[in-house]
């Protein structure tokens, strides 16, 4: 049969259901791949091999007596270590974290469990998920599986590295300013950052709740569709969780994409490195070959959006840290400490102005940017994949500018709350990168259908160090 590492989560679930492989065999193989991935990328925070194997035995028993439930029954996965799990302490990638075990699972974790998935490990993230590059000055930096001298992107660094390596087919992440899209792009895989509120954040470590969005990183778009289908929906534990009906995203993967209109904001794209501009052009051409129609669009002034999202994010992210910044400042890594301090200098009035203006800017974007197009395309990284050393700015004076350049194309979209799908570029033997397709609110099914068509032309890959 096919190498298990290459299977999608959906494909692996089918193989387990069809008794082509047992959950125990799949889990043992995944543990070995994850260990090898960790050696290369520093992607694991906690490996839970024994627990996973016990769960896999139980899954095999349930499959044998036909009592197994869920579309991912017996499938071993792993997630970013920022979600509550009953009886465990999440590290948050930091020295400061909960001191007592969580009393209940985060909603997203509970929904993965209800879908039958197992959890092998808790995976690397930027300290407090507050970093876009994979640097973590407390745990050590994550390394890219395509080239370990390069960044993984962050903050969902371990999930992206493990998915790209083929250790797991999919895993949870979160995105406040780019934390699903940047690691997916840097590691050459896909991600879905759904509409703000589409997936409950209950039990997820808050970074900046006005912007925090839970989502999934996977190699196969079909896994994004499958997982979003059971993760999305209302939750009494998160009042921001949307009650908008959840479509059958997997069924919609076959929706025709011919005739959909893709918009390019040439002014915004022109601010990227020329090589990145060519990537956007290349992916747009592939989408046009698939039947999409190319058009132009214009976002509201990009720098204004970038300032507004910072006016929301900086105080929102600083507030939970205000006590610890005073009582335990040396337990922070230098970069997060410097960034968390800045939020204290934003006035409450300016913060509220940015929050009050958010509806106006979203409405303006829907009425103007999306007036003549169905989706928009933008880069994710403004530059070709940087090295870990190039962005090792710690908490120095250039930290705001350096991090600002990394999230230039991602964090303004969080202000608008729009769904985005990350697609890897065709590598042609080179380093990975990715683009984002941006849709109207709740247009995830449309984005995923386009992504599915794209993967017929640009199939998922397994990452191994390149000999460049």
């Amino acid at each position, binding site marked *: 049969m096919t190498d298990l590492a290459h299977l999608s989560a959906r494909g692996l679930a089918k193989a387990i259901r069809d008794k082509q492989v047992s959950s125990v065999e799949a889990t043992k193989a995944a543990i070995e791949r994850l260990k090898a991935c960790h050696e290369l990328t520093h992607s694991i925070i906690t490996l839970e091999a024994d627990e996973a194997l016990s769960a896999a035995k139980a899954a095999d028993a349930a499959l044998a007596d036909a009592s197994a439930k869920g579309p991912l029954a017996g499938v071993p996965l792993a997630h970013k270590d920022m979600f509550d799990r009953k009886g465990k302490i999440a590290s948050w990638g930091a020295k400061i974290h909960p001191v007592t075990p969580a009393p209940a699972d985060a909603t997203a974790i509970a929904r993965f469990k209800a879908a039958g998935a197992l959890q092998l490990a808790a995976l690397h993230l930027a300290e407090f998920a507050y970093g876009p590059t994979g640097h973590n000055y407390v745990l050590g930096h994550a390394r890219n599986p395509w080239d370990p001298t390069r960044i993984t992107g962050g903050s969902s660094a371990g999930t992206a590295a493990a998915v790209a390596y083929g250790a797991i087919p999919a895993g949870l992440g979160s995105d406040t300013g780019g934390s699903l899209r940047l690691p997916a792009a840097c590691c050459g895989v896909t991600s879905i950052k759904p*509409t*703000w*509120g589409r997936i409950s954040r209950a039990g997820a470590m808050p970074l900046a709740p006005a912007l925090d969005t839970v989502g999934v990183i996977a190699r196969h778009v079909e896994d994004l569709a499958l997982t979003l289908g059971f993760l999305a929906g209302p939750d009494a534990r998160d009042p*921001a969780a*949307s009650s*908008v009906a959840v479509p059958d995203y997997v069924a919609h993967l076959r929706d025709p994409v011919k005739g959909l209109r893709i918009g390019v904001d040439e002014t915004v794209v022109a601010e990227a490195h020329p090589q990145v501009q060519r990537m956007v052009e290349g992916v747009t051409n592939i989408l046009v070959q698939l039947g999409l129609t190319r058009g132009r669009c214009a976002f509201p002034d990009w*720098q*204004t959006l970038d*300032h*507004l999202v*910072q*006016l929301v994010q*900086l105080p929102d992210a600083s507030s939970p840290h205000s006590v610890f*910044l*005073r009582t335990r*400042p040396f337990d922070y890594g230098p970069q997060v400490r*410097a960034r968390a*301090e*800045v939020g*204290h*200098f*934003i*006035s409450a*009035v*300016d913060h*509220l*102005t*940015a*929050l*009050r*203006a*958010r*509806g*106006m800017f*979203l*409405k303006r974007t*829907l009425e103007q940017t999306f007036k003549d197009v169905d989706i928009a395309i933008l880069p994710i990284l403004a530059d070709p994949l940087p090295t870990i050393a190039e962005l090792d700015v710690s*908490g120095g*004076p250039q930290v*705001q500018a350096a991090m600002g350049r990394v999230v230039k194309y991602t964090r303004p979209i969080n202000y608008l*709350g729009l769904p985005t799908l990350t697609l890897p570029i065709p590598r042609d033997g080179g380093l990975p990168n990715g683009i984002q397709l941006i849709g*109207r*609110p*709740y247009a995830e099914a449309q984005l995923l259908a386009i992504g599915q068509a794209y993967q017929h032309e640009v199939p998922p890959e397994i990452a191994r160090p390149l000999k460049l």
Partner: protein
Amino acid sequence: MPSQSDASPPSQEPAWYLDMPPERRAAAKAHAALLAQTADRIARELPFAADVDDFRRVLVQEATS
């Protein structure tokens, strides 16, 4: 033992309670000042009745349209 006046917050200094070296404090102030210019410009065009829930209202409208 610091005197009462030593322990009092400098009245004009934001985030006086954070232990920050002068250069980082200056950089944080400069960044906040840059963002404040944008906030001021947007505040001038923002309808008086705009409120923080408008964002969710637009999301809901989009879902029902």
